[in-house]
């Protein structure tokens, strides 16, 4: 298992390089002149040149990249062109909010999706299964931002039960978390169902039954552990999609997170922040995938003991 972990960690490095490369070229491929943008429209030619020198934009590309990398490693992401504060300072508190939202949504997805999938798999093609399957399909077809708006209309406008948006306590977390989780709950339920159904069709399940184990035992002790591996993989993959979805959900609910920062930066052309935010998102995703692979190693005896 040790070798597996090391190998997995090592394979992350080229990916991280690639990400930094893409982000670097993201800024470079912008229409227009970054120095001009940062200097502003009223700047003189001299001021623009000065800024260009300051930013090192007059140097060859590979030098710029090297400098970019060296700054990255020191967690220096530059300064926001809007607020002039360091990008890391802008990102940090909002990152926390987004992580809270994402983790809550993931927990919801597992707590609701996995049992639903199990129930559907154990009694396939019955009414219960049809309901779960249909709901899951609906959940995967619904645009999250629309769902958020509908929930606001129902719970905030009509019923006046929950706040429309913003943050400041648990009550503000409910609707955004549900909205963000919807797709994930559906995906997890569907995958749990198919994974369990595959497992329940295996020979070793028949063996377990022939030993005189109760059906309940068969499902929990024999089937579930085997079904977990594909389920975890899916949670990991879809977590990434969910991270992308935070941009939309946070906008709908005015949740002060990284997603909302990203979109406001895009609209304001605050390129250092855009770059920083996307970098953090990508890192989060890579980290999650890494964790998924490591959990995989724990669950699969073939990997764990070799």
């Amino acid at each position, binding site marked *: 298992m040790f070798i597996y972990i090391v190998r997995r960690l090592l394979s992350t490095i080229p990916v991280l390089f690639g990400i930094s490369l893409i982000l670097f070229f993201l800024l470079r491929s912008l229409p227009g002149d970054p120095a001009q943008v940062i200097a502003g429209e009223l700047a003189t030619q001299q001021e623009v040149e000065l800024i260009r020198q300051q930013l090192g934009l007059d140097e060859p590309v590979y030098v710029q990249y090297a400098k970019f990398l060296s700054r990255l490693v020191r967690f220096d992401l530059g300064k926001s062109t809007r607020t002039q504060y360091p990008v890391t300072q802008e990102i940090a508190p909002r990152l926390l909010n987004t992580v809270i939202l994402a983790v809550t949504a993931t927990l919801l997805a597992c707590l609701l999706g996995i049992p639903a999938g199990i129930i559907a798999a154990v009694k396939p093609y019955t009414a219960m299964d049809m309901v779960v399957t249909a709901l899951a399909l609906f959940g995967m077809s619904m645009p999250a931002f629309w769902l958020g708006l509908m929930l606001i209309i129902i719970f905030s406008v009509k019923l006046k039960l929950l706040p429309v948006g913003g943050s400041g306590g648990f009550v503000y977390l409910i609707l955004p978390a549900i909205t963000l989780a919807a797709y994930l709950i559906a995906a997890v339920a569907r995958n749990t169902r198919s994974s369990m159904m595959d497992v329940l069709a295996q020979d070793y399940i028949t063996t377990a039954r022939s030993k005189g184990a109760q059906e309940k035992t068969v499902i929990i002790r024999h089937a579930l552990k085997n079904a977990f591996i594909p389920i975890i993989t899916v949670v990991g993959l879809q977590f990434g999609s969910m991270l992308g979805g935070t941009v939309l959900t946070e906008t709908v609910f005015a949740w002060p997170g990284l997603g909302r920062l990203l979109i406001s930066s895009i609209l304001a052309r605050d390129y250092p922040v855009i770059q920083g935010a996307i970098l953090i998102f990508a890192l989060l995703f890579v980290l999650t*995938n890494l964790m998924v692979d490591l959990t995989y190693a724990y669950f699969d005896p073939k990997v764990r003991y070799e």
Partner: protein
Amino acid sequence: MSDQENRKEPIRKDRHEEFSHWRTGISKFLRNRAACFGGMLILLFVLSSLLAPVFYSRDPNAQDIRHALEPPSFEQPLGTDELGRSILARIVFGGRISLAISLGSVALALVFGVPFGLVSGYFGGKVDFIIQRITDVLLSFPPFLLALALVSVLGVGIKNTIISVGIAGLPHIIRITRGCVLSIREQVYVEAARAVGTRDGIILFRHILPNVMVPIIVNATLFFGMAIIFAAGLGFLGVGVQPPAPEWGTMLGSGRSLIFAAPHVATFPGIAIFLAVLGFNLLGDGLRDALDPRLGYE
């Protein structure tokens, strides 16, 4: 069985199986009610989008401030928006935009993704390594954020939306194609073809491509739905199709500020998105169940 018959068997069997394979697939599909329902939804979507300017008389851009923000009525079945425009008309014409975007992005993703996947999977070696590392990096971005990053560089508007969404879906298509090629490459009939000296290009085209088509068709169908949601998301955020174009997501974006006064403005475009995506998901699932549930999917 003589030796000659044995030698002819692999190639003929391939095509013959393929033929009846499609036929059983079609009958299986038709028996799946959910899949047929999905197909009908899509048919409705496509037909109404294509035929709208011909059969539908109302102008989606016609403003009538005196009748702004009216709830659904007999005159205006889905109500009017803040400029008095007919929401029904805008949704129907918005369908054309969604159709165009999804077609464009899927086409882009397939046209570039499939060849890369085929080459990467079939030839292996250095080519595969490079393509895979690039795909890895692209896949480490959440897809929607990739699209978002691209529009922030390329700019707003329908053309850039198509490009961004297409590129966002590209790595996934490459992966799937490659995975499929890898499993088919090991099949005996490919070895047989190679043993008789068939050129690589012909093998790719005649043996591998037809078998790769099924998962690609299924994933492309599902991708249609995703493309619509992505485009709508971009529109909602204001970085996709711009107003006054009646793109469904853009309509949701403008309807957002009106949820207190006129919730119907935000409700109906979302239902349209939901139904279209639902249709594609049902269709994609149905195709997968009908054509071959075993052929490795992700």
